[in-house]
């Protein structure tokens, strides 16, 4: 057996791709499906830039095999906006300058989205620990944490 055929769901779309047995889900998303939003910052699960949601849990897609996506339900940063309308997190990240270089942003947005769906009113400490696996070297995290808090408040209708 050389390559593996995978049927999966990404951002609600049923998709198929072929991957090598040892290929990571990150590489499959980027190179097979052209979804380049998830980034490789370390390849060892230490930076979180490759974060995607898989079957409801956030994972480092660099630590998942492409083959494991068979039958899975995946969500990536590319699926956050609805048409032209940005997700509240996306819009507030721009408005509140929660990104500088932006390389960590897709991973942080995906992780924060899952957090807010699970916990609509997280404390500062809960946000910081939830995002501890998403390294950002530009911002010192301050504006990121505040933007997640603002988005949470808006999404709660507060």
């Amino acid at each position: 057996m050389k390559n593996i055929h995978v049927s999966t769901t990404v951002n609600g779309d049923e998709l198929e791709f072929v991957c090598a047995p040892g290929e990571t889900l990150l590489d499959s998303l980027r190179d097979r499906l052209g979804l380049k939003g998830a980034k490789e910052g370390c390849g060892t699960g230490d930076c979180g830039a490759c974060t995607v949601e898989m079957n409801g849990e956030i994972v480092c897609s660099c630590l998942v095999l492409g083959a494991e996506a068979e039958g899975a339900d995946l969500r990536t940063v590319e699926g956050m906006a609805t048409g032209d309308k940005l997700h509240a997190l996306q819009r507030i990240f721009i408005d509140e300058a929660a990104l500088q270089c932006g390389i960590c942003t897709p991973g942080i947005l995906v992780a924060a989205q899952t957090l807010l769906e699970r916990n609509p009113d997280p404390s500062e400490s809960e946000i910081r620990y939830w995002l501890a696996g998403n390294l950002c070297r530009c911002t010192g995290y301050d504006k990121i944490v505040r933007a997640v808090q603002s988005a949470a408040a808006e999404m709660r209708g507060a």
Partner: protein
Amino acid sequence: MNFPAKTKRDFKVVGTRVARPDGVDKVTGRALYGADFSVPGMLVGRILRSPHAHARIRNIDASRAEALAGVKAVVTAADFGVPEDAALRDIQDNCMAREKALYHGHAVAAVAAKDAETAKAALKLIEVDYEVLPHVTDVDAAMAADAPVVQEGRADETVPEGSGPNVTMYTEFGHGDLEAGFAKADLVLERSFKTEATHQGYIEPHACLATLTGGRGELWCTTQGQYLVRELCAGILGMEASQLRVTASEIGGGFGGKTTVFIEPVALALSRKSGRPVKIVMTRSEIFCATGPTISSSMDVKIGITRDGRITAGEATLRYQGGAFPCETVSMGAQAAFAAYDLEAVRTYGWNALTNRPKEAAYRAPGAPVSIYAVESVVDELCQEFGLDPLEIRLRNAARDGTKASYGPTFDQIGLVATLEAAKAHPHYTAPLGENQGRGLSCGFWFNFGGNTCVSLNLNNDGTVGITEGNPDIGGSRASISMMAAEELGIPYDKVRTVITDTNSLGHNDVTDGSRVTFAVGLATIEAARAAIKVMCARVAKIWGIDEEAVVWEDGHAKPSGPNAGDFDPMSIEEIAAIASETGGPIAGHHEVNAEGAGVSFGVHLADVEVDPETGATKVVRYTVFQDAGKAVHPDYVEGQMQGGSVQGIGWALNEEYIYDEDGRLQNAGFLDYRIPVASDLPMIEPVILEIPNPGHPYGVRGVGETSIVPPLAALSNAVSRAAGIRLHELPMSPPKILKAMMSKG
């Protein structure tokens, strides 16, 4: 240049918090970074790296790799020439070892293959015959007369005879009579410090895609300066600049680390040999081993003070290592060390030594954080000895307008005193502390630079504006550039779009470094807008049949300058643009300048920490940054620079370090054990912006990017000292060191 009149103007756009133009691309995953670009027929490039810290390369046999199916090219140093210019030769030799591998991870060969698996397999088939040599990684060991020799003959004329074989330079700054100064002191403290090397830690790996066929090259890469990349790559590959076009991708962080080349010349050489496009993306481990961390240091600082808090003299000896190639960073450290103080007698001495470590690259205020850490630690210890308030003592001795700086010149307008006063007035300074907590303070300083800059501004037919500039946007500069253009033209921000262009579309631009972009590109943008305004006023003057001088520009409109000029309805920029064809053709303005006069910047940081008395773990519980930013064009991004730099400094102070084993191999080449701060490590970082205008910029802008990394090192060390009752003289202050100090104190 002086722009005094304009610095007090009422701004309409500058100073607001608009949305950045690249924001949507970056939050939707569409923005293309270094590794995100591909072309058909592309090969994968991989680099073979030395497992040894120091080894002579006797022979490289790549025949088995070349024979592997799918391998399209193998290159070694033999595929490159030998540049005459020593600096360029060093950069090339750092990209590909010539006769010796000079550090663990030094590139020795590279392959291009049809895919990553084949490239990886090919690397294993390359046989390198190494003669392992003695190595040295510690700066003090490297300074010694009997140290293993990293490179022969690299000392410049400043190095005194009898110095060790790895010493490459010596420098000295200062003024006044030290002996007399120390004699006036009631207490003189002399302390020795050591700091480990740190890495910029940008999250985006170095990545490039190179095509070089028929003598013409195209290079896509992540860099802080595409023009510099072109210059270096063209030099290394023996090409003319016109034949190599470099396009900068979006950049995922740099902090100085992307101001040189590592993989780009290699990818071009592989492409030249294979005739195919070649993409190289570094792994995180390669980044730590073989890009450019900052210096490590060993320092002695001696300061004298009177009982009532007047500093009478200061002296510092700095020994830096910047890896296996000559490095002049110590010179900046030596100039910056005492910059915050008004001293009658001050002297700094700087030495650089070669080691078997990767070639240093710039990192935010290069050289300054460690020397200022040492000075600010001793000042704090003196305050503790005499029970003096550390903020009052800094105010008492602060450099101010007219002070002869420790590095020579006399300061003109500087904001240190204002910054210290702001810290003193802030509630943080007097807030109560909890058990096991302590508060530390430190000043910081950076020079800031200007440099070569080109900006082209084009008026579109509908009256909107396009700006082309050449400096990669790391932290929101497209927004601030658009804002300054909108301000000058008197039009809304959203009518301006700024793009960053390739090397073919503008003249040379210096790298995005030295906190220069908002200052220098902003200055050129304002001048380009003024040039376009001049053209527009001239066109309108013709329409109205009056003199050009009788037309003024206000709020996006050409207007008669006064009643004498005639009675004409103002013409808007849209109206002027719509008839540009009829009035003489397209309207544009451009400006090319070597911007000087960036204006130095000072910062003061307050840090509260809590030290666990049983484990030595340090937690930062409160942090406030005070910094003179000149005019803050986009306050959010000014704050972002202050917060981000502070956290990098906090990492440097507490946990970040290069750890080499006995064999000179890097032990922590990954984000697991090279511990940059994570979100849960930190409190909010409160920024306090002071706006003391820079007279060298039309809007009073100063650089803000670098100063903020300087104060955290001493602020945290001083805070730990007060929280735990022990003072460390080395960085990082990792828990084992703090616990050991606490236990030996008993």
